[in-house]
């Protein structure tokens, strides 16, 4: 190897290894390909295992069987009913948690006194598993929609508060003080500057935390429900319908993915300045 060739290749790896150079950015086409492979490879593996009959079909239904089950549930209207019931609970509980968490988190981030009085309590409450509240919620609220919504509320509000509080702490002090010297009052500073500046981080916080409410809605429906994606999974287990369970799981994943994309879109539309 000549000296110049050695110098040119110094510190650079070639071929596949170059993907793992720190700070390296693969081309858009390569990244797109990898993203497609992320979903396609597991699907192909699943198809292969099922068609080769490596696992009993009772335990691992084939993709075709799952799709058939999905289609029949969709045709009968059950799927739609379940989706409406579960997403309704998720949005109900999460919306309540958000409506309370955003103002509380902002005040905690801005006022050290409010932070001091709230943070220890919230730090402890947040370590009480939301699912452990189910018996109490049933005693207090019965077995209707209320305990399910309350469970999702309890399971997400503390994380929402703490993450909003953290987001608010990144608002530059100069921006708040500039607003005060422009004649801004406290409420104007909180709403028009602090909340507005933190909006991208708040939307991102909600995007991450709404995943927890999908966990909890399934837990709640396993305990007591007439309809819902979680309830359907439990019923399917009773009849050994693994194909239905798989179908419901995929639906859960797809809805979660759609919600995630929805939040990303919201971020891009409402905070053009930050993306």
């Amino acid at each position, binding site marked *: 190897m000549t000296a110049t060739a050695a110098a040119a290749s110094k510190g650079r790896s070639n071929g596949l290894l170059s993907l793992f150079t720190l700070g390296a950015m693969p081309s858009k086409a390569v990244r797109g390909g990898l993203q497609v492979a992320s979903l396609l490879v597991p699907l192909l593996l699943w198809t292969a295992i099922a068609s080769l009959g490596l696992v009993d079909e009772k335990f691992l239904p084939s993709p075709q069987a799952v799709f058939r089950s999905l289609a029949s549930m969709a045709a009968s209207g059950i799927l739609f009913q379940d989706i409406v019931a579960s997403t309704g609970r998720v949005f109900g509980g999460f919306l309540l948690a958000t409506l309370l968490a955003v103002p509380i988190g902002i005040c905690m981030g801005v006022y050290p006194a409010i932070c001091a009085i709230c943070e220890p309590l919230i730090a402890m409450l947040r370590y009480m598993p939301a699912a452990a509240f189910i018996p109490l919620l049933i005693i207090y609220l019965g077995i209707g929609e209320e305990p399910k919504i309350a469970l999702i509320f309890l399971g997400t509000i503390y994380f929402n508060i703490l993450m909003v509080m953290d987001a608010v702490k990144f608002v530059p002090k100069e921006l708040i003080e*500039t607003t005060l010297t422009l004649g801004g009052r406290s409420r104007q500073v909180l709403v028009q500057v602090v909340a507005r500046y933190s909006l991208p981080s708040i939307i991102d916080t909600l995007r991450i935390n709404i995943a927890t409410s999908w966990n909890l809605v399934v837990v709640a429906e396993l305990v007591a429900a007439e309809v819902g994606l979680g309830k359907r999974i439990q019923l399917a287990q009773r009849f050994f319908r693994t194909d239905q369970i798989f179908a419901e799981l995929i639906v859960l994943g797809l809805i979660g993915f759609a919600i995630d994309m929805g939040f990303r879109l919201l971020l891009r539309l409402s905070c053009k*300045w*930050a993306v």
Partner: protein
Amino acid sequence: MELIVNNLSKHFGEKLILDHLSFSMQSGDFMALVGSSGSGKSTILRLIAGLDQPSSGSISVDDTPVSGPGPDRGMVFQKYSLYPWLNAAENVAFGMRLQRMKAAEIKERTAYFLEVVGLSDAATKLPRELSGGMQQRVAIARSLATNPSILLLDEPFGALDLQIRESMQDFLLKLWQRTGLTVLLITHDVEEALVLAQRVHVLAPNPGRIIRSLDVDLDKTDLDQLRLSSDFLALRRSLSATMRELEPALS
């Protein structure tokens, strides 16, 4: 307008930051406080703006003691000075909106002050699309639009490249000459203080105190000439020497 700073001291805990500072300013004055880090120069500005409270002494504007921030004392910081989600015009309008001026008046004044800082063409640009110098000009316009009786500048050009900083100094001096603003500038840059201000106070660090005050009586019609003139260079050397003597490690 008359700003009077009288025997101003400030402690942070046990540490004395400012030690019995006194000075005063009249309408139309351009004053600079020049000092190294630790001289408490930013603290002085924050106290005048009402963002901090003095430990002792007093600050008054037209015989009214300063008790908190208000639009009569406009402030421009070195960085993070603009609202990143608002374009240049909306940034300029923001203070007037906070004060609930009439929409027509806001629109008119926004256009006027963008014109004053030479950024009419950039009205619809977001801060991130503006250069550092343009951003600071927008911040100055926003402050002026709320009609302050004094403009407080906290190292406003400190984060800019040298060339841009010089053109911003030219801009600020012309603005002051044209509009008769009252400006209090904080800087660590001796040259900047001499180019811009009529009166310069030199601050010593630990604790911050005024150790030298001088009037700058130079011909400022052409700043490029001024920066090279012997009178200016002599003053600059003399002030730099004063500042250097304050650094224990170097003297």
